[in-house]
């Protein structure tokens, strides 16, 4: 339907009819998507995650993620409360202050909670200064204590006394965007290779298919790890970040290319392609105006479903120390601290970044499923 409409619109100006058909189809799909409650919930969760972690992690964190608190090493999480020890209810949430002491026998930090004093949590307080969205210098934070010197570690601290909560937010910025950049590259390489392969067939098709086959014969994580190990150590965090995205998409495009090849092979034989050829359309025109728009729903579904895969891949690579490099942080880098079981047994809060990985990946899976069902004309 769509390409014919596009043709009509550009050549004969039947604009009303064309937009109406396109719109109605879109509405149908949107309605179908909205009926899927899990997918809608996933959209909301992802919107919150991206807003808090990608757009405004500085605002929502109460510590800078690299700040060391030497007095609070491996501090346990401080849980905000409304009800104090005596059972009195307080409208404003508070935490009990903690003090650390070094056990001279085991050389572990021992924490004692002081329940006689309440540190109330205030909203829109002043803290460390930063640039909001990288543009506006400010020091307002979403929450904090009246006295910024007092400890407030919602998710505890790591072995250098860095606030785990803030690190999860800043790590999310990297983990949640690396997948998007990787998928963007996957779409570009995959659509190009796939349409070329299906449309021209013959030697080009053969070459692309062999290349895809070879890339798929490497087990993914070992291949990525080898490429990750090849990155020069002197690169800036930003260079490193993009290099990791490129590495992830270098193998990932093969799946999309194969699917698209199959689609394009069938579109190539259809009447509208023949018609386009008859009126003298160039290959480029046919590919850009007919092949790609027709495959769009496929491209969208496959790429949404490969975002979670990318997030998991980045997490695993960084966990192995071959992905994002400290001092930059990502959820995988944070989980590196939890590699040994005895560490996890002593400091279970170091596994908290994992929960966020699961939430993000789960949401993307639900979203991808929802989009697939909504775009599938045969689903009821």
């Amino acid at each position, binding site marked *: 339907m769509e390409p014919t409409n596009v043709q009509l619109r550009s050549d004969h100006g039947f604009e009303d009819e064309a937009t109406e058909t396109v719109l109605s189809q879109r509405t149908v799909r949107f309605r179908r998507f909205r009926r899927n409650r899990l997918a809608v919930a996933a959209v909301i969760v992802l919107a919150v995650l991206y807003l808090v972690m990608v757009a405004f992690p500085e605002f929502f964190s109460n510590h800078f993620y690299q700040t060391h608190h030497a007095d609070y090493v491996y501090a346990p999480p401080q849980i905000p409360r409304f009800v104090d020890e005596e059972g009195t209810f307080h409208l404003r949430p508070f935490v009990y202050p903690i003090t650390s002491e070094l056990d001279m026998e085991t050389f572990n930090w021992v924490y004692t909670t002081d329940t006689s004093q309440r540190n109330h949590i205030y909203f829109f307080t002043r803290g460390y200064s930063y640039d909001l969205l990288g543009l506006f210098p400010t020091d307002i934070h979403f929450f904090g204590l009246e006295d910024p010197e007092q400890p407030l570690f919602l998710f505890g601290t790591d072995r250098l006394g860095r606030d785990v909560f803030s690190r999860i937010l800043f790590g999310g910025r990297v983990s949640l965007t690396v997948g998007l950049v990787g998928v963007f590259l996957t779409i570009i390489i995959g659509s190009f290779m796939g349409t070329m392969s299906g449309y021209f067939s013959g030697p080009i098709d053969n070459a692309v298919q062999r290349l895809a086959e*070879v890339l798929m014969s490497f087990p*993914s994580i070992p291949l990525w790890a080898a490429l990750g190990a090849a990155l020069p150590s002197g690169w800036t965090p930003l260079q490193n970040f993009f290099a990791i995205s490129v590495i992830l998409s270098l193998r990932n495009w093969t799946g999309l290319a194969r699917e698209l090849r199959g689609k394009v092979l069938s579109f190539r034989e259809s009447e509208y392609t023949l018609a386009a050829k008859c009126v003298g359309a160039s290959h480029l025109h046919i590919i850009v105006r007919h092949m790609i728009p027709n495959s769009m729903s496929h491209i969208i579904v496959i790429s949404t479903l490969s975002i979670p895969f990318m997030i998991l891949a980045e997490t695993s690579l960084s966990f192995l120390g071959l992905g994002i490099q400290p001092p930059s942080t990502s959820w995988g880098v944070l989980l590196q601290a939890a590699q040994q079981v005895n560490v996890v047994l002593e400091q279970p809060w170091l596994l908290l970044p*994992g929960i966020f990985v*699961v939430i993000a990946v789960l949401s993307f*899976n639900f979203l991808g499923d929802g989009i697939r069902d909504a775009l599938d004309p045969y689903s009821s």
Partner: protein
Amino acid sequence: MYVYFVRRLGYMVITLAIISVLGFIIINLPPGTYLDRYMAELQAQGSESAQEIVKTLEQRYRLNDPVFLQYTRWISGFVRGDFGLSFMYNMPVNQLIWGRIGYTVVIALATLIFVYAVSIPIGIYSAVNKYTIGDNVVTLFGFLGLSMPDFLLALILMVFAATFFDQPVGGLFSPAFRDAPWSLARVWDLLSNLWIPVVVIGTAQTATLIRVLRGNLSDVLNLQYVQTARSKGLSERIVIYKHAVRNAVHPLIMQLGMGLPHIISSSTVVAIVLSLPTMGPVYFRALRAQDMFLAGTFLMLMAILLVIGNFLADILLAIVDPRITYE
């Protein structure tokens, strides 16, 4: 059929040849070599003859030759089973790897069996009892299994075992059998410890297969021939197992070829957390130390395992599905 075998075999050899070139290039990508680090290390220790030691090593391994010469030497040794020397361990690579390959294959096969043994019955149950509580629970766990990084699952399982069973988890053997010679008791011990890595590595794959089978089978159950079978008065059991499942299960065999890379890849990461004696941990250590022959050998062997696995899956599919023509 015979022609199909031969052609498929030919493709396999070509693929492997390209893989070996790509693999060699990738392993040689990191700037500098192991010897650069070694020299820095020697100099840091205050060794005065550092330059000479490194020079002798360079000559012994002929590291100054052009890359393609190094490649031809490496690959001609490789096909004869000589994988070069590991700088890190200072011994021939093939002395280091055979045991690890063995365990990798054992774990991969056990995982494969686990994945199919679990996903087929659950997938059938889920498709037959669609949207019941049982199906919803399966779907929920399936999605969770898909969304959890496998190393995290391994960590959680280990913490769980340590807190509730007070039992240290890790490795493939109990401490008593770790260095013992092979015996029936040791094999039994291996089998009783195998389930943790197998479950951890297999979970994501199981979840995928359950979803695939559930989708396929519920499509097939709506087809007319199933209706015909029912109206003939066949029992529901026969309708499902003999008529519907048979046709829904083919994509799962196709998944066999795609599942194997996933299993091998996943086992490398899980092996680090669970300290398994497989290829993974040594491979990553070799990568970090730029021990190129060791890392390159592992990368090649993993790719070979996969290519052979895909080949077998294709052949199996050709045998099982009569609709496939051997062209």
